[in-house]
């Protein structure tokens, strides 16, 4: 049974249909990428999973239907969603943002996990009392990732993490994600416009075009796929 399963999911914003029947699966321990141009429905797919947009069709997480779930309900099932624009609470401090990641958790290990994030991202310690809105874009993205990880999610969803970031920072970001996937079996669903990066880190990928899955397959194969290469890899 896949960890996440979407079957013929449609989504609309008022009268505008954004997804015309998307089906996809994510297995436990996988890194799956969703590629596509602007407006293809990548972000809407993640929003549909998180219950942030009205949908029809079937969405199941760990065997449970998510059709009527609220964003907080989905989060409580173990889905960490780092949204477009990172979702940093800009007026709170860096440390308060990180603590919010552990909001749903109780018990002594929370403290240890917070410390562990500081090991991954040492700059957090020096900036812990700084207002999060004053961080650079790269730091905000790292903080958003750290905050999502503190929740110990079963599924991590990243929406365009590379957007507006310098290449070196993007590399660093995906290094952390890859490491957590390999070492701790973290399941990841990542939405990216940058197909090169996305196909590099993922094992499988879906290409969305105007709200539909146009191409899907192992990332290695998509790299050599004629249409994908021409439209998304640019060579």
């Amino acid at each position, binding site marked *: 049974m896949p960890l996440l399963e979407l079957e013929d999911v449609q989504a609309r914003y008022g009268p505008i249909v954004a997804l015309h029947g998307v089906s996809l699966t994510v297995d436990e321990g996988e890194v799956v990428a969703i590629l596509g141009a602007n407006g293809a429905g990548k972000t809407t797919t993640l929003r549909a999973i998180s219950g942030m947009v009205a949908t029809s069709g079937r969405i199941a997480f760990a065997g449970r239907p998510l059709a009527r779930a609220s964003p907080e309900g989905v989060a*409580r099932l173990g889905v960490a969603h780092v949204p477009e624009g990172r979702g940093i609470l*800009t007026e709170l401090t860096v440390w308060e943002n990180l603590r919010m990641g552990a909001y749903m958790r109780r018990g002594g290990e929370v403290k240890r996990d917070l410390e562990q994030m500081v090991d991954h991202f040492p700059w957090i310690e020096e900036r812990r009392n700084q207002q999060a809105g004053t961080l650079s874009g790269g730091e905000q993205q790292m903080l958003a990732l750290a905050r999502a990880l503190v*929740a110990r999610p079963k599924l991590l969803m990243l929406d365009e993490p590379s957007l507006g970031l310098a290449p070196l920072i993007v590399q660093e970001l995906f290094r952390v994600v890859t490491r957590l996937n390999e070492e701790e079996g973290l399941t990841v669903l990542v939405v990216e416009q940058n197909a090169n990066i996305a196909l590099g880190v993922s094992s499988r990928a879906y290409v969305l075009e105007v709200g539909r899955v146009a191409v899907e397959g192992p990332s290695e194969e998509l790299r050599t796929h004629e249409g994908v290469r021409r439209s998304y890899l640019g060579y």
Partner: protein
Amino acid sequence: MLPLAFSVSELAQQVVFGLAMGGVYASLALALVLIYRTTRVVNFAQGEMAMFTTFIAWTLTENHGFGFWAAFFVTIGIAFLLGVGVERIVIRPFGHASHLTIILVTIALFVVFNGAAQWIWSPESRAFLGPFSAQPFDVGGIAIARQDLGVIAVTLISVTILWAFFRFTKLGLAMRAAAIGPDQSRLLGVRVPWMYALGWGFAAVLGAVSGMMVAPIVFLSPAMMQAVLIYAFAAAVLGGIESPVGAVVGGLLLGVGTTLLGAYAGVTPELELPIAFVVLVLVLLFRPAGLFGRVIVRRV
């Protein structure tokens, strides 16, 4: 006698009295700020909710044999439930309505609480015995009213508890997060609508504290919080409607300011309220963010 020929002792007494009234304004102002920050609602019914809960405290002491402090804490519990209930039952259904609609709803609440209080307890004024004796307290040769010191202490303690709650607890942090970024907070698992209801609950508690502290000074009546509400609005705007610290400082400044103007500048009591209004208008004109209005730094 020249207005300036006053004694230090009298000045000290006036300042302490001003701080006590200021504490009352500050509590209600903080309630307004709390609700504004969490739900962006300006709650015109805040004062009437406070008055209504103070009447409940009075009933408990008068008809059910409660001591003041027992009634005080029971009333705080009732006020909390009342605040939560008002948000869930009355405000929530208007969730996405315009500001104007919500303002009209809170004005309707004002009328409902006021009418209910008059109906249940009659419009007349009654004595409400506070917990502090009128006996003066000797501080370095200056006689300070125990009542004033008590009111200052109770309001400062409530404000401090609230501050610590928001600063140090997970729930307090989640309430702040829900106010700043509801969508982001929901993705982190925060039940945002409940955070709003809690905000209303805490605000109603602060209002109840303010009502129970002012009732022994001004007499208990359905109209007793109306002037206090104006001062609280002025205090909240003076401090910056977004700033809890500002609301407290604004309340204390206004309390001391109007008391001293009354005592030394020949401002009669009926002029004190218009002065609060003038302060409100001047602040809105010249410094709309208030004294403590923060400029939020953002990088994108």
